[in-house]
Each structure stands twice: as structure tokens, then as C-alpha cells.
């Protein structure tokens, strides 16, 4: 374990790759490694990139990596793709757009599948962020499809969140999971050479301004940038916008930064407690056979699932309602 910690801190790719695999497969021993690594996190700047399928997130991330490398920054990329709920398999294809960076030792790219176990994505992605942070990456780009609550939670743990749309999405922007428009720090209209880019820009501006009054007290006004990622147009401006947002978080003594950190820690801790509790209690109930007995009791009409779950939970927590 100590050996692993040292290797991660030294930036050893194989150890990092194996560790992220273990995190994903929920190997219990990784907790100790993560505990030891945590003290070495906090250096990386985390940027979340989200949007509907097909808007060009991977291509955009690829160009962002190229720009960051020109600025001599090291980069970690976590690209999340959905697991098929029917087979449990997944095709992880984000890498296709980024393979040109695979020989660059300053870049580590990792594909992750959502896997679909509750809270799993958020927690394992956060742990993977910690690992890349500890290995010394300056920037960590997290790419997710912005359709599920888990994905929204992931981008929320970024310091700067970029939401990518394309022209003509218009009303479809509404289809972006409610609550995600509010977490966008920067908006990108990709494929901006297509018809309707200005219309989309106006619609976005209106929607953001409406949200502004309610949620933001007029502090950071999210810029909306027109980008053509394939041709590397507008990407330099996007990176400038990220730096501006970073400076904003740090100004006035880093109040905003502290606020975000507190929020992240709060959510992270609550989720870990939740997962841990469920795991412990459910394991015990299954091992002790109470779980199956309750299933049969409900099946036989002897009780209802509400009463059964109350009884089971409180039997483990040692108190009555």
C-alpha cells in the first residue's frame, strides 16, 4: 500500500491505471491508499465539460489538452461514457478524439463507464480525480454526458464547469437536465459555423440572465463562447475564460473558492456516509438471512415493504422510530 502511494506520487502510470481500476471495481483495500493520497491533493484545477451526446465534447477536450500542453501544463482527462443498462457493457469511444495525446507523457487519459450502481459514478470519479491530482496533474478535465443526476453531481465537483451546446438546439437546451444550467460557469456553442448560432446564443443569454437573478446575485456572469473545436477556433478564448473564472474564484481572498470547496467536501462526505451505511447494513442483512426472510414475508402477504424495511433498518441501527 505505501509502495502504491509512493508510486502514484511519483507519477507512475501503471500504478495509477491499476488504482483507478480498483476504485471502479470497488476493491475495499483502495480506501487505505486513497486516505494516504488525500493529503497530496488540492493542487490540480478541475474543469468539468458536459453536454448532450454529439455536441463535440471529446473534440473540444482534445483541443483544450493541446492548448494546455502548449502552456506546459500537465493534464489528466477522465472521459465518462454510459454503461448499457441491459448488458452491463459499455463502449468507451471518447478516446478516439484524443489518441494523438497518448504518447505525450504529460497527459493521462482514462475512460470510465457509468456502471449504474447507485452513487457509484460520482464517488469513483471523485476518487479518480483525487488520484490524478496526487500524481501531480496541473489540470484535470472531466467529460460527462449531461443527462443524469450522477453526471450533474460530477461536474458540480469541478472548479469550473463548461456546458457545451450546438446551434439549433434552441428549445432543446431545456432538455439539459434541470439544475445544470445553473451550474454552468462557461457556455460553449460548438460547431458555431452552423446556421442558428446567434439565435442559440441569444436564447442561452436570456435563460442564463433569468437564472442569474435567482441564483447568482450578479457576481460571475457566465460567458457564452462560439467555438469550432474541429478547426481549433475559439478554443484559446475558452481557455482564457477558464483562467478568468479561476481568478474570480481566487479574488477577494478566495471566498468563492472556499465556498466551492466547502460544498464539494459537504457533498462528498454525505455521499460517502450514505454509501458506507447502505453497504454495511445491506451486507449484514443479506448475510444474516433477514433480507430474504423479509422478501418472503412481503411475498406471502404477512407484511408490507414499508414495515419490513423500517424493522430491518432500525434493527441494525439499534433504535426505534
Amino acid at each position: 500500500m505505501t509502495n502504491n502511494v509512493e508510486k502514484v506520487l511519483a507519477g507512475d502510470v501503471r500504478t495509477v491505471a491499476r488504482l483507478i481500476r480498483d476504485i471502479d471495481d470497488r476493491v475495499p483495500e483502495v480506501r487505505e491508499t486513497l486516505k494516504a493520497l488525500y493529503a497530496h491533493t488540492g493542487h490540480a484545477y478541475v474543469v468539468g465539460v458536459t453536454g448532450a451526446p454529439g455536441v463535440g465534447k471529446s473534440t473540444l477536450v482534445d483541443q483544450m489538452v493541446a492548448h494546455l500542453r502548449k502552456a506546459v501544463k500537465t493534464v489528466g482527462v477522465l472521459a465518462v461514457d454510459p454503461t448499457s443498462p441491459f448488458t452491463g457493457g459499455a463502449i468507451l469511444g471518447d478516446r478516439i478524439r484524443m489518441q494523438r495525446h497518448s504518447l505525450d507523457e504529460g497527459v493521462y487519459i482514462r475512460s470510465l463507464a457509468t456502471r449504474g450502481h447507485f452513487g457509484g459514478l460520482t464517488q469513483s470519479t471523485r476518487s479518480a480525480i483525487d488520484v490524478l491530482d496526487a500524481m501531480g496533474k496541473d489540470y484535470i478535465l472531466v467529460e460527462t454526458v449531461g443527462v443524469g443526476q450522477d453526471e450533474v453531481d460530477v461536474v458540480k465537483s469541478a472548479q469550473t464547469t463548461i456546458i457545451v451546446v450546438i446551434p439549433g438546439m434552441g428549445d432543446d437546451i431545456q432538455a439539459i437536465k434541470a439544475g445544470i444550467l445553473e451550474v454552468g460557469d462557461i457556455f460553449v456553442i460548438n460547431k458555431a459555423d452552423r446556421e442558428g448560432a446567434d439565435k442559440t446564443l441569444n436564447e442561452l443569454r436570456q435563460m442564463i440572465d433569468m437564472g442569474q437573478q435567482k441564483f447568482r446575485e450578479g457576481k460571475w456572469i457566465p460567458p457564452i463562447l462560439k467555438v469550432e473545436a474541429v478547426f481549433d477556433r475559439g478554443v484559446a478564448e475558452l481557455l482564457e475564460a477558464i483562467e478568468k473564472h479561476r481568478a474570480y474564484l481566487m479574488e477577494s481572498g478566495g471566498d468563492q473558492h472556499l465556498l466551492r470547496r466547502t460544498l464539494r467536501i459537504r457533498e462528498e462526505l454525505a455521499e460517502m456516509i450514505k454509501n458506507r451505511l447502505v453497504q454495511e447494513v445491506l451486507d449484514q442483512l443479506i448475510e444474516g438471512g433477514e433480507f430474504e426472510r423479509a422478501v418472503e414475508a412481503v411475498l406471502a402477504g404477512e407484511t408490507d415493504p414499508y414495515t419490513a424495511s423500517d424493522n430491518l433498518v432500525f434493527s441494525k441501527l439499534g433504535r426505534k422510530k
Partner: protein
Amino acid sequence: MVKERKLRVMVAKPGLDGHDRGARIIARAFRDAGFEVVYTGLHQTPESIVQAAIQEDVDMLGMSSLAGAHMYLFPEVVRLLREKGVEDIVVCGGGIIPDEDIQRLKEAGIAEIFTPGSKLDDIVKWVREHVKPRKA
């Protein structure tokens, strides 16, 4: 809690040929078999494939070649993996590969070769039997 190791595989297209229909179909079949499949896209060098396989920590690497360069590309990937001390990624290949090449490829460390006519079910079955997810 019962820990389930998921099989992670990579499908790669080394070299210059631009035909990835077969690779995509294989990727899809692997996904439907419940594997996590990383696809690299076209025109990969042996070096970029090896780096990607290491970064993704896959259990198996499958390469497709239809342009006749397999006698260089496949063994080169195995050589680079060994050079980096990687012994636990099963490498196999597929595509238009003459019978007389197969034995030599196997001697070079390619675990299995699938040629046109191989059934998807048989390939998946072979992977299930010969590739095991990493031990904890």
C-alpha cells in the same frame, strides 16, 4: 459485498488501413457480452496503442488489420508491451491474415488470431475462457 471485476478490453486499429467496420462490430459484440470496451479509432501506431492499453488498464487488447501489415504491427505491439514490463494483457488479432502467418504470430506472443468467418459468439466465448479480469 460481493466484488465483481468487470472485464475491460481494448479494440485497436493499427496501421494505415481505413476499414473499421469489423473492429466496430467486434466492439459492439464485446459490449453486448457485458465487457467495457475502449475503442481507439483508426490509424494507430503500435506505440500509441500500447500507451492507451496501459493508461486504460485493460485485460485484453484486440487488434484488427486488413491491409497486410500484421506481421510487423502485431508482434511490435507485443514487443513494446514486454519492454514496458507488461505481461498481463492478453493480445489477440483479427482480419485478413493468411494461414501461414498465424503460427508465426502465435510464436511472437499473439494469443489467438480470428480470421474472416469467425463467429462473434465464438470470439466472445474465447475471450471469456482465456481472459480473466485482474485479481484484487
